[in-house]
């Protein structure tokens, strides 16, 4: 029993890592006033960029950089449409998601001829698990041994990074000048403008931050979690991250809990597949799968608490006449 719990938590962390990164990306963007349903597309595009680059150059670090660059590029496209040209943020997001889905497969086929997949990555071209010091030594110690060697040790660097980024993110958002201005831009851009700060440039910078984080999330999927890119491998993770962002009420630490919860549900769903539970019987996997979405809908509707987003979200900033 204890072992299963540890294993489920272990799986939770692995599933939650890209969600955390993507949700925090959404947090930067939405806190500055830009709705970001393009997370999905950015994850997908950067997953492809990471795997393709790692496969061609043999360097996983270059893969990560390429992933971040790709994602930032898409974020800039989003910004160009919604900030500079005051386009609809949702339409722009939909376009980016479609673009990523189509372009990754098209370019993948052209470059690798594997029907859109990248060649499987070797160990050196991936982020591999890190065994923390002493993990093997105390693996057999009861309780703590398993906890340390399975749950805490043995993840790849990006998992640790995603957990580390949460406090960093919190610190940037709430403890720095940039964070203060960013939050102000999402709440009342007029206040920012009259204080002599450019709202557009601020929002662009927020999108760059978002791009970098989704880039890491994408790289995680194709070069850490799996060994290579397969078409549509983001599989709705961007939307789950968006749900977690709303679920965490646009605050870093609650967002982390939201991602862990959704990751946990995912891990449970796999674990419970076909398993008979006492009294309840078999729980359909799908019932657990939809929980993130159902919970988010209920929250948005105010049935469980209230999620109020940044006030000026989704509205292109126009200097009032």
């Amino acid at each position, binding site marked *: 029993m204890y072992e299963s719990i540890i294993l489920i938590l272990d799986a939770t962390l692995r599933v939650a890592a890209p969600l955390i990164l993507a949700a925090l990306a959404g947090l930067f963007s939405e806190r500055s006033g830009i709705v970001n349903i393009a997370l999905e597309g950015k994850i997908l595009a950067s997953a492809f960029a990471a795997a393709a680059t790692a496969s061609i150059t043999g360097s996983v670090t270059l893969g990560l950089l390429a992933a971040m660059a790709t994602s930032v590029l898409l974020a800039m496209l989003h910004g160009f449409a919604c900030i500079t*040209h005051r386009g609809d943020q949702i339409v722009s997001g939909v376009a980016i998601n479609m*673009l990523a889905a189509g372009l990754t497969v098209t370019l993948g086929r052209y470059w690798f001829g594997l029907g859109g997949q990248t060649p499987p990555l070797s160990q050196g071209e991936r982020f591999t698990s890190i065994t923390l010091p002493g993990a093997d030594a105390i693996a057999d110690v009861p309780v703590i041994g398993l906890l340390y060697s399975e749950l805490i040790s043995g993840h790849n660097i990006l998992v640790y990074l995603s957990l580390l980024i949460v406090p960093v993110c919190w610190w940037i958002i709430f403890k720095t000048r940039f964070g203060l201005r960013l939050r102000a831009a999402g709440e009342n851009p007029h206040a920012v403008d009259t204080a002599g700060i450019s709202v557009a440039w601020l929002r662009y910078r927020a999108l760059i931050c978002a791009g970098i984080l989704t880039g890491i999330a994408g790289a995680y999927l194709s070069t850490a979690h799996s060994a290579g890119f397969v078409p549509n491998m983001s599989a709705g993770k961007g939307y789950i991250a968006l749900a977690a962002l709303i679920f965490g009420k646009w605050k870093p630490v609650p967002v982390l809990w939201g991602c862990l919860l959704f990751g946990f549900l995912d891990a449970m769903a796999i674990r419970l597949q076909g398993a008979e539970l006492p009294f309840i019987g078999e729980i359909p996997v799908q019932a657990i799968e939809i929980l993130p979405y159902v919970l988010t809908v209920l929250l948005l509707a105010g049935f469980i608490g209230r999620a109020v987003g940044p006030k000026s979200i989704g509205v292109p900033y126009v200097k009032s006449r």
Partner: protein
Amino acid sequence: MNDSKIPAWVNIIVLPLINILFAFAFSAIIFIAVDVNPIEAAQTMISGALGYQEGIGYTFYYATNFIFTGLAVAVAFSAGLFNIGGEGQAYIGGLGVGLVCLGLDHTLPFWAILPITMFASMAFGALWAFIPAYLQAYRGSHIVITTIMFNFIASSLMVYLMVNVLNQEGQMAPVSRVFESSAVLPGFHEIVGWFGFSFSESPMNLSFLIALVCCVLVWLLLWRTRWGYAIRAMGASPSAAEYGGINRKRLIIIVMLISGALSGLLSLNEVQGYGQQLKLGFVAGYGFTGIAVCLIGRNHPFGIILASVLFGILYQGGAELSFDFPNIDREMIQVVQALVVLFSGALSLMLVRPTERLFVYLDAKKQSKNQLAAEA
């Protein structure tokens, strides 16, 4: 913006065309990037989509889907609502159609089943739109987010039903049994056959005609009824609509029910016409394409028909492309589609000013020419 000088047709025809041209120009760049000559590709696509009867049939089979989802997005858009949930509404609509067909195909003749499946597709689709609509109107939650979430919920629900409930006994594949032919929509080739014409066999079926009827009905609704007036008023100016005594909350629900019903009708084509059984994933992104169709079609049923045929050509032509060009497949079409959404939607404001300036410039030039001519 000095719009008084710009003739209306510039906004209605020229600007959308320029936007599409931009999208195609960027698509061409991507074609070149994957070593495909865009002109050859375009030729292949056009001949593949329109060059022979079966191709034409496929083109219009795809267009049928786009008309339904395009109309669904357009009706909601007219009221200022962004229904991004066409995908899920069509999926659940298909469930309705499938249940009716599976339940009644042994007992009723086609002409009795058709009205029931039509009703079921609309009712199921509308139901799936009702909850987000209610939550938007009465609980203030954002319809875009809720409809996205409902797409995923619909998807999981269908997986569950197909795997556990509706699959055939003793079979692992998540598909229902094939409907009896009494339930299946007649193909276009059969319909023209009744009138003594012949047409190659293709998936194009009766639902294309139903889609055209829906276009007329939606046009009538939006432009020839008081409800359409209310819908457009709310979309154009919520404050004026309120002044005009229009009940916002009730209208949100009504509009979303109509929108969901239109999405649901897509399943007539996919389930009752093409697939002839219930299976997974038959909506295949058509709901999202509806957004592109609606944007190019400028929210107008006639524009939506044109845009749907355009996308039909892209889909069918795209399928043909992959035979001739090993470097591309249908995913390329999604890129084209994405660029169309980008330029016709998100960047639609970008080219407004330059186009207007161009016209003012051309106008001035023409006038000075006329003046010169008059002086001479």
